[in-house]
């Protein structure tokens, strides 16, 4: 996006992909898949988009994002049981709780970057995961929080029931559209520009006069809150919440999705990655038991040879004719040794 030009609210490509997603329930069963898969993909697409705000846009490698997703999932269930049986209350509580968790983590780690950031987020992720397993009276421990209901969408005069997977899919799609609009706006706002500047060179951004700490904290909190929203949707889809989504494995999966899809170079990369991840799970999983073996090898190959991911491969094919410059991935930081 050239500086000085106005960024549209949404791009034609976004519109096309939304419409494509909207047609999914009509043909997904005909190609041998099932409606719930679409719900899962969209929820993780929201999650990965939110995660990429931290990894791709701010360059902060969080390896503990599962915690926020999990907090959202539990908060949605707990709000339903203890507060009010309303979808909106549940989702709001999920967002708030995960945002609060993100704030707590941000207070401790926002002065860090690079590998130390990754290590500290792993530590915090483990703390939340551990609490989720051990606080049996609140979360149900390893048995999980069960019997979470898919509450109806109450819009004043009309109410939609979400117990059917297709209905749930369209509701999640609506949230997805909202989140992608919000994040697109955010990334291209002055705030997003400053975050990008911090990613490119934190020291320079500080010398220019920006309060780097505050921006890094804000990015993590927003990302955590939206991850919590995805988590809330997930516990509703699953009608239960389990601690395993908070584990290091699951935190790694969202990193894999984001990177495989091309989150480092493309806004839509994480969505591509989420689709690829779940299709690989179901399609390779149908052929062999060890689907993660093949997906893991694919991931390793991408990290080694094409860290720009699937989106990067396509972008490379498209721009090869015009220019030989591919988008820079690793921004060369000044070596202060």
């Amino acid at each position, binding site marked *: 996006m050239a500086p000085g030009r106005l960024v549209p609210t949404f791009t034609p490509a976004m519109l096309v992909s939304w419409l494509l997603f909207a047609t999914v329930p009509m043909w997904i069963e005909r190609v041998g898949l099932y409606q719930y898969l679409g719900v899962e993909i969209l929820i993780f697409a929201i999650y990965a988009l939110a995660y990429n705000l931290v990894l791709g846009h701010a360059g902060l490698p969080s390896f503990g994002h599962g915690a926020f997703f999990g907090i959202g999932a539990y908060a949605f269930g707990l709000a339903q049981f203890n507060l009010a049986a309303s979808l909106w209350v549940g989702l709001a509580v999920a967002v708030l709780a995960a945002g609060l968790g993100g704030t707590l983590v941000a207070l*401790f780690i926002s002065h860090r970057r*690079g590998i130390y950031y990754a290590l500290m987020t792993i530590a915090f992720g483990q*703390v939340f995961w551990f609490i989720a397993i051990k606080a049996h009276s609140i979360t149900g421990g390893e048995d999980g929080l069960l019997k979470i209901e898919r509450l109806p969408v109450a819009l004043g005069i009309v109410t939609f029931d979400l117990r059917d997977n297709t209905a749930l899919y369209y509701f999640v799609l609506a949230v997805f559209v909202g989140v992608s609009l919000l994040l697109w706006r955010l990334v291209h706002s002055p705030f997003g520009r400053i975050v990008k500047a911090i990613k490119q060179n934190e020291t320079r951004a500080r010398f220019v006069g920006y309060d780097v700490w505050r921006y890094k904290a804000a990015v993590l909190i927003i990302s955590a809150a939206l991850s919590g929203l995805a988590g809330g949707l997930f516990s509703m889809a699953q009608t239960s919440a389990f601690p395993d989504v908070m584990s290091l*494995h699951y935190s790694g999966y969202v990193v*894999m999705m984001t990177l495989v899809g091309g989150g480092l170079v493309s806004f839509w990369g994480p969505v591509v990655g989420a689709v690829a991840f779940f299709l690989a799970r179901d399609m390779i999983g149908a052929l062999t038991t060890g689907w993660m*073996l093949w*997906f893991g090898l694919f991931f390793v190959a991408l990290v080694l040879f094409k860290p720009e991911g699937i989106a990067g491969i396509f972008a490379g094919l498209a721009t090869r004719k015009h220019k030989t410059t591919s988008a820079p991935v*690793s921004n060369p*930081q000044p070596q202060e040794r």
Partner: protein
Amino acid sequence: MGTLLNLLPHLVNGITLGLLFALIALGFMLILGLMEQINLAHGSLFALGAYFAYAICAPRLPLPPDVLGMWAAVPLGWRFAAAVVLAPILVAPFGLVLERLMRRTYGRDPLYGLLLTFGVAMVLEELIRMVWGTRDYILPVPREMSGGFIMLDLIWSTYRFWAAALAIVAMAGVWAIVERTRFGAMVKAGAHDSEIVQALGIDLTRLRVWVFVLGTMLAAFAGVVLAPLWGIRPHMGVDAVVPAFLIIVLGGVGSFWGAAIGGLLVGMVVGLSGAYASEWSMLSMYLLLIAVVTLRARGLFGKKSVLEV
């Protein structure tokens, strides 16, 4: 005095646990401190060591039945000793391949090494699942090392002390290699200033291979030693790698004594908090880490490293 005596078993427990944590962290520390690479596959190599040891100790190897029968007739003590020596050697080739892959990430953002080894960890864990299944195994321990003894009216597990002793031996060995040999000096110099070391005519590429293999073998060794205590299961790798990196961050990147003291500290905190709230004892190490690192950004003994770029 009474309370002190009550705390004694937890204290001893904490010290042995700390030594074992330090043992797990040792290989991780070598690769991180000397090569500035985060090896998240460390835990998977650790798990592989345990599985190979199981294959050696409990003979279910793909060998002709008469050979297998002869091997099974060997006393368990010898088979266990063979596992301690052979399992790390068998895991070493995995380290060689991993180092070969990681070469492409040298000099790039260390994040790529982290992502790469995370992917490799996933692959190795899945491989383990495919070969050995998801069930738990128990590594049999020779009679001379198992069981317990009574001291001060308390029952102590014998193997814990053997494991702690093996941990001390491994740590002393690594210290001697890094601090007292020409190889160690070259590796340390290479981590400090790779350009000068190469200009002096030292083959840094080969040196790095050896460091990585050494780190891999240490991971496998730790896997063998800990398998009788923690059991053998596919996700044991992740259970091990998290305390390992935690100890390194706590102790300070690139510091041998940081890793040793960090390990002991974590072990003691887990052991002592286990005296009061056994359910929550593992949480205490994360809180310790967060507290220490908040106050001392580079851990207890850390130096400025490339990771802070």
